[in-house]
């Protein structure tokens, strides 16, 4: 089970591939909304996938501060660390 930040980032990237246009390489700085075109509905569905992958619950409130891949990975890491 992924627990450190790098493992989380790697697994998160697997989930993000479905949104990634061929010309974009996903990096920690990739913008979820502007570069991967993940709108609010897609983000909510993505969160459910992430919750199952990492066996966590991500409060919707926490997503307000998430803009980049790094910020999402960091949020997951924080929730996992608090368990």
């Amino acid at each position, binding site marked *: 089970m992924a627990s450190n930040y790098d493992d989380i980032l790697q697994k998160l990237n697997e989930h993000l591939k479905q949104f990634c246009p061929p010309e974009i390489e996903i990096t920690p700085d990739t913008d979820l909304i502007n570069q991967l075109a993940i709108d609010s509905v897609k983000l909510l569905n993505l969160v459910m996938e992430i919750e199952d992958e990492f066996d966590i619950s991500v409060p*919707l409130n926490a997503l307000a501060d998430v803009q980049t891949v790094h910020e999402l990975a960091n949020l997951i890491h924080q929730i996992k660390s608090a368990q």
Partner: protein
Amino acid sequence: MSLLDKLDAIAAARKALLPEGVEVFGTPIEEVYSSTAAKIGDRRVLFLGTNNYLGLTFAPQCLEAAHKAIDSEGTGTTGSRMANGSYSGHRALEREFAEFYRCHSCIVFTTGYQANLATISGLAGTGDVILIDGDSHASIYDGCRLSGAEIIRFRHNDAQDLEKRLRRLGDRSRSALIIVEGIYSMLGDRTPLAEIVRIKTTYHSTLLLDEAHSLGVLGQTGQGLVEETGLLDQVDFITGTFSKSLGNIGGYCVSNHPQLDQLRYVSRPYIFTASPTPATIASTRAALKLLREGVELRRQLWSNARTLYARLKELGYQLGPEPSPIIATILDTPQEAIALWRGLLEHGIYVNLMLPPAAPEGKSLVRCSVSAAHSSEQIDFIGETFAVLRKTIFQH
């Protein structure tokens, strides 16, 4: 980016999607003739998108009660329930709802939207957790946001998914609020209430059921899904609206928890708004009486709903998972949905249109709301019109 740029972006998106001159949202209705007939543009149309499930908007008893209330109490209360806006009628309606549900308490709100906003934000707060179905109405999402509680979604109508998320909460599940709806407004499907109740009992959580679309529609006396399933005593809080089966505007929350009454002192959407007008309260009281006695209305409603659902299914339309007074035809693209919506209007039928992101799973919906007031001839006409449009729009 300036303050108003985001509104320009919305205007551009609207222009790209909707043909010029087609007012699919906020369609101007020029005259209303009855609970099922109106004038749009220069055309007489049949209402098939009004949530007027029992057809009570022109019931003589409701009209008479509203007229009397206006004459005796005036046009409005001009004040909050917490100040000068609690008339004898408001309190009587609360007693009648509490008695209807055999509950300790009821609070009446100015709109159904505010009923959810006020109840949810009054019950939960910072540090609490609310678990909501992914297809919840916007009033539920907004109530959760206003509460400041943590919000966790579970997959639509998936009780196992809810249980998984409760399990992850550990001891916090004991202070969690679960929110589901009797009938969901998009696809017309029901929550699996027995399973949800089993889970909430196992995890010692609190359950709120929104009966907005099921009040008057389900159960012998029209209480909703709680009555149909016999689970009234297992649900902690029930919210609902006057703006569907009761043919009016307003909302309510009933509960056997005596703490419900304390919401009057902490719930901002209850405190900081004017109370329902005397006419609204009086006609809702008359409508509630008709709803409770409306066994024949419900029989007619379900006969109409099942007939139309079967007809549209037979024609090959993709529909919601079960027959219901909400019959949603599911289209792959907004363009298909707009074409069907326009075609129906040109044939004299008004329905609701739902486009992404309002509709689930990126689909578009043409949503029919069947009424007990529709005649069997009107249901046949609706079916035949869908048949014609199936050929002209989808089979070129």
